[in-house]
């Protein structure tokens, strides 16, 4: 066991040199590199944490927005439904009104057409019946139409019940016997005498009897005493015809309306 002091000194120097060199070349660079890397990793973690926080905030924000949008969508839908309902009501109302209007127009037109048709029918039928009747009566044994009409008129006059007869008499009293017999054509003397006789029989007396002619009467005889009128005329039959035709058309219209 020897101790060489020169070697000891040399080894001390060697060791100190080694310490110095390794400190420069090894420990310091490695320590610094590790520190830098640790710093970088810490930075990365901090960055990741920051990003995560941001992402969470963003997610929360988006969630809030979505909820708002949902709420707004419900609101808008409700509004739209309300509007649609209102619009539907309005359109229905309008359509109903339009239909009613159209229907009124249509009914008015139908009524007008019916009126026109009836008037025309009445006019034509009256003329027709008068002509036919006249023809028929002319054809019958040369009989004249007026005497037959006079007979028919007198039959009607005599068939009046007591009240009506009294009313006519009272009227003749107020006009002091003034009365007018109107026919479509001029009456012959014999017929006039028959009529005067008939009137006297019913009214007691006919001092102011006058005769007149009115082509509009077509076929008939009319007695006018003051405000009262008694008449026999084809018009009566024509009016019956008119009434029947009107009833028939009215029935048609009722069917059409269903």
């Amino acid at each position: 066991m020897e101790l060489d002091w020169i070697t000891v000194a040399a080894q001390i120097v060697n060791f100190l040199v080694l310490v110095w060199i390794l400190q420069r070349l090894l420990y310091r660079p490695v320590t610094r590199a590790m520190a830098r890397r640790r710093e970088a990793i810490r930075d990365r973690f901090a960055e990741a944490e920051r990003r995560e926080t941001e992402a969470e905030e963003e997610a929360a924000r988006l969630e809030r927005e979505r909820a708002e949008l949902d709420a707004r969508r419900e609101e808008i839908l409700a509004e739209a439904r309300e509007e649609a309902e209102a619009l539907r009501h309005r359109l229905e109302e309008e359509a109903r009104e339009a239909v009613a209007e159209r229907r009124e127009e249509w009914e008015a037109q139908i009524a007008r057409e019916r009126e026109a048709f009836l008037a025309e029918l009445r006019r034509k039928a009256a003329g027709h019946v008068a002509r036919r009747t006249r023809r028929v009566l002319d054809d019958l044994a040369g009989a004249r139409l007026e005497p037959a009409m006079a007979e028919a008129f007198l039959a009607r006059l005599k068939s009046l019940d007591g009240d009506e007869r009294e009313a006519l008499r009272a009227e003749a009293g107020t006009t002091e016997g003034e009365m007018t017999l109107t026919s479509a054509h001029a009456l012959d003397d014999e017929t006039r005498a028959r009529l005067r006789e008939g009137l006297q029989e019913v009214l007691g007396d006919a001092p102011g009897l006058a005769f007149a002619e009115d082509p509009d009467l077509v076929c008939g005889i009319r007695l006018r005493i003051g405000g009262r009128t008694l008449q026999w005329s084809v018009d009566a039959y024509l009016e019956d015809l008119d009434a029947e035709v009107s009833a028939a058309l009215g029935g048609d219209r009722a069917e059409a309306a269903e």
Partner: protein
Amino acid sequence: MEISPDSWILFTLGPVEINATIGFTWLVMALLIASAVVLRLLLTDTGALTRWQNLWEAIVETVRDQIREVSGQDPGPYLPFVATLFLFIAVSNILAVVPGYRPPTGSLSTTAALALCVLIAVPLFGVAQRGLGGYLRSYIRPTPLMAPFNVIGELSRTLALAIRLYGNVMSGTVIAGILISIAPFFFPVLMQLLGLLTGVIQAYIFAILAMVYIASATRAHAGAADPEGD
């Protein structure tokens, strides 16, 4: 058979004779410095680490952790000294498996030199850490009567450091030499493998003890002022 590599003269440099202790010390230094230079070239902060950098970072980080554990202080100031002790002794011992190589740590001169370095470093670190007065006061604790014993303890542990390392490494070499002569081929190989283990353990023990002594100088007496410090 020569026990000490001190008396094995490798070559002469002019008038100076270079013995095996110094020569192989230079070899170990050269290896360590070359490693550091290679590492320096490969060193990177970012991206994938090379295996070489990974190895050295692991070693440095382990030493730092050990220093922190023993001293409870920032390992920065102590790292070069303690890590170099460990690396130098470990590499010297590990190379013992190479035929023809004699570990410099098998020389009492080398171990005495390292122990002297520790002996000097302990008061230096103590003074740097606590000031001259603070360090010197540690010798008269708990009473001035203890001062001679403290001084003796300082010297005796230095002697123990040197003798322990020298004895272990030298004995390993001697045992290998003796076994080769009496039971060649197989048994010496096992002893050499065991030598690798004991070599690294000795390096660890030497470095840790050095750190313990330094820590006791820089911290133990601070513990008197701060009992909770430990």
